[in-house]
């Protein structure tokens, strides 16, 4: 009984002193004009190590490390197409020492599944850029343009591979169907690598992938681009000759965004702190290298601009795949 009481006292005292020291740091931070994370920062990546989100998360973490001088640990919490990581992040509400490497799953999950969050549950910090998709087919395919593909799909059974129900490729093909009245038969795979294997093996007619994923196969001539589902042509040398879908008369452009978010309900100065640090990161060579290595479009947006972009993107996405 005594010992229990003692324990409680110690615990309360400990908690108090922690709270006090946190206050102390908070006030010392605000005295020179804003928030600064008191200790280490954690960057949650809601997908497994090695994928596109992981590469983005690690690039951002090391860029922000450089900008802030703080140490930022990357933590992969994967599962449920990202749902597990986002839900874990929801539990960090109000704690600005957590960040999350976000992408389209933040919008696609609430649109298709019963999850407890929407993009409004979090604080958007920085949009890193856009990753559009290319529609590609096997080198010896008789198809040469996306209109060839949709013409074929209007008349006969045309099989395409998708990397999951909430994948960017499923959205792109759905938008193409809506724009042209064609119908695609979808075979569901589970990753970009699997759909590339399927089109190389001739099991499916066409796939829609991020250019960074197929640059090697395009250069070697194993795969042939049909069109880019982007607003404008790419400026990269390897991709600049690929016409957009719009040029071929199909008005479809949809990008996956990548970015960083902080938990919801964080103080305004913390939000401003992360936006300022992100701006520093965007000017670094590391940022340029990341964008170029992955053949993305460096369309950045910060804070409220990023929120506005998300609202617009969410509307489009729900029209395409919403339940």
């Amino acid at each position, binding site marked *: 009984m005594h010992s229990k009481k003692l324990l409680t006292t110690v615990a309360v005292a400990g908690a108090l002193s922690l709270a006090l020291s946190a206050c102390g740091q908070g006030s010392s931070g605000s005295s020179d004009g804003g928030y600064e994370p008191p200790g280490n920062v954690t960057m949650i990546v809601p997908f497994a190590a090695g994928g596109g989100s992981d590469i983005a998360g690690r690039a951002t973490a090391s860029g922000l490390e450089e900008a802030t001088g703080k140490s930022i640990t990357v933590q992969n919490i994967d*599962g449920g197409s990202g749902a597990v990581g986002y839900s874990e992040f929801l539990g960090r509400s109000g704690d600005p020492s957590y960040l999350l490497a976000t992408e389209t799953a933040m919008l696609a999950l609430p649109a298709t599944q019963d999850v407890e969050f929407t993009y409004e549950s979090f604080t958007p910090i920085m949009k890193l850029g856009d990753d559009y998709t290319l529609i590609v087919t096997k080198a010896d395919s008789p198809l040469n343009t996306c209109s060839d593909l949709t013409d074929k799909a209007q008349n006969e059974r045309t099989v395409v591979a998708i990397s999951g129900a909430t994948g960017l490729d499923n959205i792109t093909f759905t938008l193409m169907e809506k724009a042209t009245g064609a119908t695609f038969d979808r*075979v569901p795979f*589970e990753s970009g690598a699997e759909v590339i294997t399927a089109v190389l*093996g*001739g099991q499916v007619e066409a796939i829609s992938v991020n250019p960074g994923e197929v640059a090697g196969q395009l250069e070697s001539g194993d795969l042939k681009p049909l069109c880019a589902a982007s607003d404008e042509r790419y400026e990269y040398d390897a991709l600049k000759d690929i016409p957009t879908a719009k040029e071929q008369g199909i008005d479809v452009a949809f990008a996956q965004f990548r970015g960083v978010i902080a938990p919801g309900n964080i103080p305004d100065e913390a939000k401003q702190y992360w936006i300022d640090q992100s701006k520093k990161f965007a000017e670094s060579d590391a940022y340029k290298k990341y964008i170029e290595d992955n053949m993305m479009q460096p369309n950045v947006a910060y804070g409220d601009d990023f929120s506005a972009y998300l609202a617009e993107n969410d509307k489009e996405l729900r029209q395409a795949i919403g339940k």
Partner: protein
Amino acid sequence: MIDNLMLGLETAVSPENLLWCFVGVLLGTVIGLLPGLGSTTGVAILLPVTLTFDPVTALIMLAGIYYGSQYGSSISSILISTPGDSSSVVLTIDGYQMARKGRAGAALAISALASFFAAIVSLIGLIALAQPIARFALNFGPAENLAIILLGMATIVSFAGENILRGITMAAAGLLVSMVGVASGFSTARFTFGSVNLLSGLDFVAVMIGIFAVGEVLHQIRRGGEKPIRAGFRDLLVTKEELRRAFPSTVRGTGLGFTVGVLPGAGATLATFLAYGVEKQVSRFRQFIGKGAPEAVAAPEAANNAAANASFIPTLALGIPGSGTTAVLLGAFIIFGLQPGPLLFQQEPDLVWGLLVSFFFGNLILLVLNLPMAPVFAQILRIPYVYLYPIVLMMSFIGAFALGNNMFTLWIVFFSGLLGYFMKRFDFPAAPFVLGLVLGPLLEKYLVQTSALGNGSLLIMFQQPLSLILTLAALVALAYPLIAAVIRNLRTRRADAKQRETVTH
């Protein structure tokens, strides 16, 4: 070819590259040894550390972690029945039985030798035939992969022990548990009861740690009072007889592992299960398998390492990852500004060949490390159970926490541990359960894909020559043991009847 090898040799033997190759395989062994921390996670965690290196040095080290962990993960399977990685689950059967009979040192030595043999042979295959093999493997679409998974399911009989019905029941239970989570190809959640943690299903490695490690500890506690295995140092060395028995199995395991590893859809774990199943059918000593046979250690171990090397074939020749770990390595290529794809061999010859030649040195280092260390590692079993079991439990839970970074994974381990205990207590075989659990998601995925490809019909499995052959093989493999059992049953009945007749007359 020779020019390329010389170029690779030049790159691989530079002191710096040799050093990091050594560091890589050593780290890999440790990572493999720890339950839960597999090669995929290991490579991903250490990737940022290598960012300041030369690309080729970094990749040599990262690849070293990959195949080093294949050696390491078998050690804990054999000694304490705790698989370090999913591909060494099968070793917990005969490897652990050998250890319990005081042959732990021998089992470890056989596993190291089989690994080395398989690694070198598959490496030669990789160097000589990467491009044509990779092209051929592309013919394996959903229908062919579905047939291969069915072949894998057919090995249940080999793991069922004496009672086939119990084996099939456990496999079905494994399949059922694998259904938890979001359905393949759709966004509907099944059996998740509203829990976000269950959306991605029960982590297979966590279930495995529970059933094998925690279950075994609980089981031993109930039996209680058993003395630690006290084998003399001499008993720990592998005998000539054991090596002779293990050799043909190693060759078979290597061939099987290489074939399965090249395919984009299968993987090292399936290869080990298939290798075990094949041994159970064709080995001269098949009646000993399951009770601590060197064949059943050598074959899966060889298959595991051959499959790991073979997964580099699609990775390097086509730029498509052949396994989870090579997927992370492909990510590393991009971070280093290299373009993975079919042109990699031409554009970066010193990198590709340097990497491949480094495999030779890495595996040699592993053999030199593991072979003399086998008797030393086996001494772990001399630790009294009062100390050993708490350590095993602690390692299991730490490993499980590393898997998901959350408490939920620990609960999975806890409950699977109870399940594993009751399975041992009432003699339900664990391996078919694991088989169902591993193959379940793959079976579902390929079933959905095949059906989508065939416009709702599975008949396309019989329409292409390759899938036709594989499907027929799978059907025969599934039906054969049942038919054989029925025939055997009839024969004994007839013999009994005859005997009764002669008695009455």
